[in-house]
């Protein structure tokens, strides 16, 4: 690699959890500001607002103020997405509100993130909210966690305060099974340990926040995963002017798990037929292989009837075809779940009718206590059994995020009402 060539470290999606009180907006504002993602005109606009509100310094939290309703209430309601780049890596921040009533938003933001920053106010330590965020992070399967002990400026940058919080959190993390957890003291307000180290945290010799983000693995998991290719669309250009294309049958989709090479043996679900990959194409080019998250077109050796909703998988690791699913479900809708009703269940590119067979228990996400229930309200999380009209090709969520997840859709309103993760 030449010296001029800047290495592309890919793209990292991360989630920030905490409330306005923890300085979450200030942290995001600081990341955007210190990486020069904020431009002069935006800065001028927030300087004006800050001084109008009687503040002497620029309030970086204003950068993430979005909707009118949120400004009126001074809180964040919905997930917002922000972008910055360091030159070697692009970042997408999912900014999730911290309030209890917005569990569904945190689950939404977490579903696409590979790293979570959990903010703790150094004056307050580990709170119920911290536990809730950590548990949801674990539940949605975010592999990397950074615990940011913020507002160190308000505890005189005291190391003993920091150490106490770290010890308390470590014990809790072990209890819920969070494995990759890092800790960092910071002052988002003053910019200490975000991009620059500052001069007041000399006793901390670990990496800055941006160093942690730059070094984090971009892949969701370092484990080898089974090949999964849900078919989105079938390309059959019979009517083309080019006679060579008359027999063309391309299966279009994205590699949702694992990878695939030309010549690999694959099985097509639901019919169970086995064949080999003849070609992997993208825009007229043939590729020797396709990796996780790559959108391609597959051509197969044998003529097999395949349509949208089918799945092409590795013949060595075929997922279960099942009409019964056990899952952890987060309820997203203001209309409660009704066991009497039928919902659409969308799993990869497949849509099937589903009914609740039984609710095992609801989880109190603050205490992890299990409670009996017959329905679910918005923000509830429960373990339940579903029965399906047609089979899905299910993986355990912890083995494969994309083929272990589903959403539930209300048949009459078409709203997305539930988010599910397949277990067991």
């Amino acid at each position, binding site marked *: 690699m030449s010296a001029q060539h800047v290495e592309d470290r890919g793209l990292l999606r991360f989630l920030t959890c905490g409330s306005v009180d923890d300085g979450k907006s200030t942290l995001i504002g600081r990341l955007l500001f210190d990486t020069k993602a904020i431009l*002069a005109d935006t800065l001028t606009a927030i300087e004006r607002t800050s001084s109008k509100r009687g503040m002497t310094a620029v309030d970086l939290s204003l950068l993430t*103020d979005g*909707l009118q309703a949120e400004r009126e209430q001074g809180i964040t309601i919905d997930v917002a*997405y922000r972008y910055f780049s360091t030159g070697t890596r692009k970042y997408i921040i999912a900014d999730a509100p911290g309030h209890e009533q917005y569990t569904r938003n945190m689950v939404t933001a977490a579903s*696409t993130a590979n790293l979570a920053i959990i903010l703790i106010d150094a004056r307050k330590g580990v709170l119920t909210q911290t536990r809730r965020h950590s548990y949801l992070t674990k539940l949605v399967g975010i592999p990397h966690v950074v615990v940011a002990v913020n507002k160190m400026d308000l505890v005189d940058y005291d190391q003993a305060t920091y150490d106490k919080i770290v010890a308390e959190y470590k014990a809790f993390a072990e209890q819920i099974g969070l494995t990759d957890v890092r800790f960092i003291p910071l002052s988002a307000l003053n910019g200490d340990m975000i991009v620059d180290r500052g001069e007041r945290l000399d006793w901390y010799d670990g990496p800055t926040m941006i160093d942690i983000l730059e070094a984090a693995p971009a892949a969701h998991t370092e484990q080898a995963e089974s090949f999964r290719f849900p078919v*989105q669309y079938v390309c059959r250009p019979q009517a083309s002017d080019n006679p060579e294309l008359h027999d063309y049958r391309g299966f*279009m989709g994205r590699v949702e798990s694992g990878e695939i090479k030309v010549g690999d043996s694959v099985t097509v679900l639901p019919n169970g037929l086995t064949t080999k990959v003849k070609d992997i194409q993208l825009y007229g080019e043939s590729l020797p292989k396709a*990796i996780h998250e*790559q959108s391609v077109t597959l051509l197969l050796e044998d003529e097999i009837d395949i349509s949208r909703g089918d799945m092409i998988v590795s013949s060595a690791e075929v997922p279960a075809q099942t009409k019964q699913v056990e899952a952890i479900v987060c309820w*997203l809708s203001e209309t409660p779940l009704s066991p009497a009703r039928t919902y659409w269940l969308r799993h990869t590119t497949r849509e099937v009718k589903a009914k609740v067979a039984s609710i095992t228990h609801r989880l109190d996400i603050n205490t992890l206590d299990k409670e009996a229930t017959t329905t679910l309200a918005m923000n509830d999380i429960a373990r339940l059994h579903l029965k399906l009209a047609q089979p899905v090709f299910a993986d355990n969520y912890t083995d494969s995020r994309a083929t272990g997840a589903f959403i539930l859709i209300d048949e009459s309103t078409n709203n997305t009402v539930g988010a599910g993760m397949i277990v067991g």
Partner: protein
Amino acid sequence: MSTLTKQTLSHLDWLESEAIHIMREVAGQCSNPVLLFSGGKDSICMLRLAEKAFRPGKFPFPLMHIDTGHNYKEVVAFRDKRAAELGERLIVRSVEDSMKRGTVVLKHENESRNKHQSVTLLEAIEEFGFDACIGGARRDEEKARAKERIMSFRDEFGQWDPKNQRPELWNLYNARSHKGENIRAFPISNWTEMDVWQYIEREKLELPSIYFAHTRPVVMRSGAIVPVNVPLMNGELTNLPKAGEEIIDLQVRFRTVGDISCTAPVESDADNVEKIVLETATTTITERGATRLDDQTSEASMEQRKKEGYF
């Protein structure tokens, strides 16, 4: 780098792959989608993404442009040329036809037609029965867009209700709609202006000439650079200078292209994509700020220019 680290896509490949996935989901879930194509840089990227998503087949949707009648002729010519090269169907519906029908009424002759495009768009959606419109909007464009869904639901009146949007988890998109309702799909939601330029550079995409530095007559109006005497397709001139305004010839380029009445260029000598990528990396003004300069932002940019040696 450790050899154990799993191979991942570069950031542009990842963004491209996500956009292709979203386009295929629209094609797979919706019965009658349309791709909005204006001839602008974002929609030019969208066409390349559609090629990558659906070739060697034809696009499973037509292209459509809502023409205000006040578009730069270079862009309109490019629009027609590109659609013809691709061999795809281009539908053009015009705000001027809505004006003739009386569904668009301008407050005065010179009012910007930009916001009236939505009336014409809704009329076209009804005319063709489209259940999804694929557009090139990005979340980095504006604060309110930061919360926009990739599949955004619009009611029968085409309205966006931020409080009534569907939660969007993993890459499971819900594009279901009832008759009359509509989905707006945004495959490049997660792209920034920089990503767009880097993609144009990588894919060697052709652009209308006005994206590159060129000299044109302008006036300075409330701190903004306003192009004047702009020729329309029919040869007529629009954006005439006001009495007393001094016309100067300035080297400029457009960062964004839309209705002539509300699109302002920036001063620039970037005459190729490589130079524009560099300029984008070092600019101090947002894309929207550059095209809609109000007094305060121009103070900041003027201050910056002075710091850099402007007299």
